[in-house]
């Protein structure tokens, strides 16, 4: 039912993306040539490093997992023309909810505990984002600003829990008590941290794709996103779709945070998810808000991340080089994507 675009249009949109990537990679290469004393080796580790062993490869894939969830969360919201800028807080809160459930049930069956923990993460993330959507519906408070502000507060509240009631007294780290080991997710690629949550991420991307493009609610959400006046005219309950996309978006963020705690860390670290919310926006923009496109977009971000880690360990550059490349991609992609989004938002308002 989607408008079939001509091959030319498709290629044109890919060209823009390819150009963005090309410029970013060129920047990385230039930086390494300038900063590294052994540029050949550093370049090798940056670009090939992530594929040289299971550990690097698995960790790279694992970094992509939460990005898939946050990217999906943003894509769902943006497709509906609501703006969720509170991803940071929602991911972090998802981690907290998971930790609380697991610590409260130290001896439950692993499967039941994990399920409850993920549901808790989903509900808390959804509630936090949904609150901003509700304010938008009720008082026309800009959800872009309220979600951001609420998220900033949520981060501080989670920090309080980590450094206060949940802190592990036997450890100097800023982290909660460790979760019972039956809750840790199956490792897929030892010794790397890649775990079962990677499969959840793929399944979720497919589910979200079908939900957005084939379901009744997905159709109404997309129509509201494209043209709210038209949707109201057609009898769609448009105020509902100011809240629902926010709830779904927050829930996806929450799951992302919860799975990181369960799968990767087994404990709630302070600031464990910092940057995940913002990077989710970049991932969604690169994917042009297509849920299936989120998978490769998240992998791209993870690849830059892993490359920088490998180059740092085996070469002589710092990790910031990945951040520079990522932010460069972010700038280039948002510059074109925000332009069209703002236009759409104006029309849909």
């Amino acid at each position, binding site marked *: 039912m989607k408008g079939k675009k001509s091959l030319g249009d498709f290629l044109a949109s890919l060209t823009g993306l390819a150009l963005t990537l090309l410029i970013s990679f060129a920047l990385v290469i230039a930086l390494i040539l300038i900063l590294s004393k052994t540029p050949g080796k550093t370049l090798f580790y940056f670009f090939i490093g992530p594929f040289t062993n299971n550990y690097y490869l698995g960790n790279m894939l694992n970094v992509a997992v939460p990005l898939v969830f946050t990217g999906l969360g943003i894509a769902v919201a943006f497709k509906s023309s609501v703006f969720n800028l509170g991803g940071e807080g929602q991911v972090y809160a998802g981690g907290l909810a998971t930790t609380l459930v697991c610590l409260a049930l130290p001896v439950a069956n692993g499967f039941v505990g994990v399920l409850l923990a993920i549901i808790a993460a989903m509900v808390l993330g959804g509630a936090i984002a949904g609150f901003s959507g509700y304010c938008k519906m009720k008082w026309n408070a800009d959800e872009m600003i309220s979600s951001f502000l609420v998220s900033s507060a949520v981060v501080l509240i989670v920090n309080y829990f980590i450094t206060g009631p949940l802190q592990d007294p036997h450890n100097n780290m800023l982290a909660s008590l460790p979760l019972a080991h039956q809750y840790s997710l199956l490792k897929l690629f030892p010794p790397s941290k890649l775990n079962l949550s990677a499969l959840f991420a793929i399944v979720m991307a497919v589910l979200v794709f079908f939900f957005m493009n084939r379901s009744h609610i997905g159709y109404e959400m997309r129509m509201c996103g494209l*043209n709210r006046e038209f949707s109201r005219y057609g009898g769609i309950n448009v105020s509902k779709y100011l809240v629902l996309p926010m709830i779904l978006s927050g829930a996806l963020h929450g799951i992302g945070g919860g799975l990181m705690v369960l799968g990767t860390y087994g404990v709630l670290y302070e600031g464990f998810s910092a940057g995940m919310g913002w990077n989710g926006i970049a991932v969604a923009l690169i994917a042009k808000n297509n849920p299936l496109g989120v998978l490769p977009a998240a992998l791209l971000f993870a690849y830059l991340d892993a490359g920088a880690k490998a180059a740092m360990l085996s070469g002589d550059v710092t990790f910031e080089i990945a951040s520079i490349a990522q932010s460069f991609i972010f700038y280039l992609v948002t510059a074109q994507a925000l332009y069209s989004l703002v236009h759409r938002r104006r029309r849909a308002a």
Partner: protein
Amino acid sequence: MPYLEMKGITKLYANGLLANDAIDFSVEKSEIHAVVGENGAGKTTLMKILYGLEQPDAGTITLAGSLVSIRNPLDANRLGIGMVHQHFKLIPDFTVVENVILGIEPVRAGIFVDRGVASARIRQIVEQHGFSVDPRTPVHQLTVGQMQQVEIVKMLYRDASLLILDEPTSVLTEQEIGKLFVTLRSLQKGGRTCIIITHKLQEVLEISDRLTVMRKGAVVAVRRTADVPDRAELARLMVGRDVLYPLTRVKKACGDAVLELKDVTLTQRGRSRPLLSNINLSVHSCEIVGVAGVSGNGLGELEDVVAGLQRVTSGHVLHLGEDVTALGAAELRERGMAYVPADRLHRGSSLQSSVTENMIVANHHRFLRAGFLKRGKIQAFADGLTKSFGIDGGPHVPIGTLSGGNIQKVILARELTSAANIVVVAEPTWGLDVASSQFVYEKVLSMRAAGAGVLFISSALDEILGIADSIIVMYRGRVVAQLANDQNTQSDPNVSKQFKEYIGEYMLGLKDDFAPTNLKGKDAQP
């Protein structure tokens, strides 16, 4: 030697559409030249080429005897060609002066905009042409007619000697059209040349000296306007076949009331005059009630209220005898309301979505299995409608890529289903060509024949006279007249003309059958 001569202009768009096929077009010095043709005939493309917005694949342009190349609108401006677009290109928060000088601001001391000089010149232009705008007013406070004047001033300020006006009358009221024509004549007297693109046949005959008729990317006739006997002749030239004109209507007995408005009032905070004031009307089955009025007199608000998109401040709306005042669009649609909105590009369609997605907006609930859409069924539904309504392009293309007439067909296909018992139609032929308009009228009449009641809201009096069984005239948010429109007002052109003038007086507020003083006298209640 003509003033402007375009020779062998050919334009093939990337999508394979041959918009202009070796067109020869010429305009004499200081004449008013009309370019007429159906939607998609290639008029706008030809004018875009002249204004430098499109580049021709072949052909030459000669202006005042010398061969010119126009690569962009700046080139066109330099050559003295100006264009007044159908959709105005003005900045609402800027004043008239600021809008006019935008891009060519007179500068003082290197950095300051010299508003004094600009204002003086603009004031002079305004006075010279008898415009009614104050140069210091912000544009958003102007009426549509005044905005158009600003666009014209903009071109005169740039010393345009050849003005292209794209559909200049489509947004204007009758009086404003009159004023525009006075302006065009005065421009002509001043030695300027005007090209107007239009669908409105009557106006072509009234204002132009010569006309060029285009059809399917080619010029089919060039005439002196004085040599064209009447509208029917012109319509025949445009569409290449006889257009039914006027409509044939079969009188049918009206049934029960399907839609009633009782004392409907709509007020807006901060405005002393209500947008709608004590509106009473009823639409029966098998009846077309035409609502006439100059735009800005409550037609749009009435449309919103009956469609369930705007809550009334007081009063009641009844559907099939039941109070539906509090119901929204979704419930009304379920009860059998169909609605073809005036704003078909923003409200009536979602331009980036496919034709199919546009077709199911109101009834996608019917294609559900466990919360998911049945794609096969939807496809069959869309294919069927596309075929039966003759929509070009196919169900997969984004609706925004279709022509205006085809977009309206999609909306009609969606709305005019057998389930509808009340049809609200607003400005349904705005900007459409003769053949597309005819199609709209036929569909509306077929709904009436099938037993639906139709509320036909339009600021084009001609079409209301042609189609409605009874006519309501609105002025400043009030109903000022309720008239029957019977056969003899249509068949006899003289009677028809008188009737039109008669209604025109109501539309302009010169007459009022329900003036508040009368009302008090009639049903004064303790």
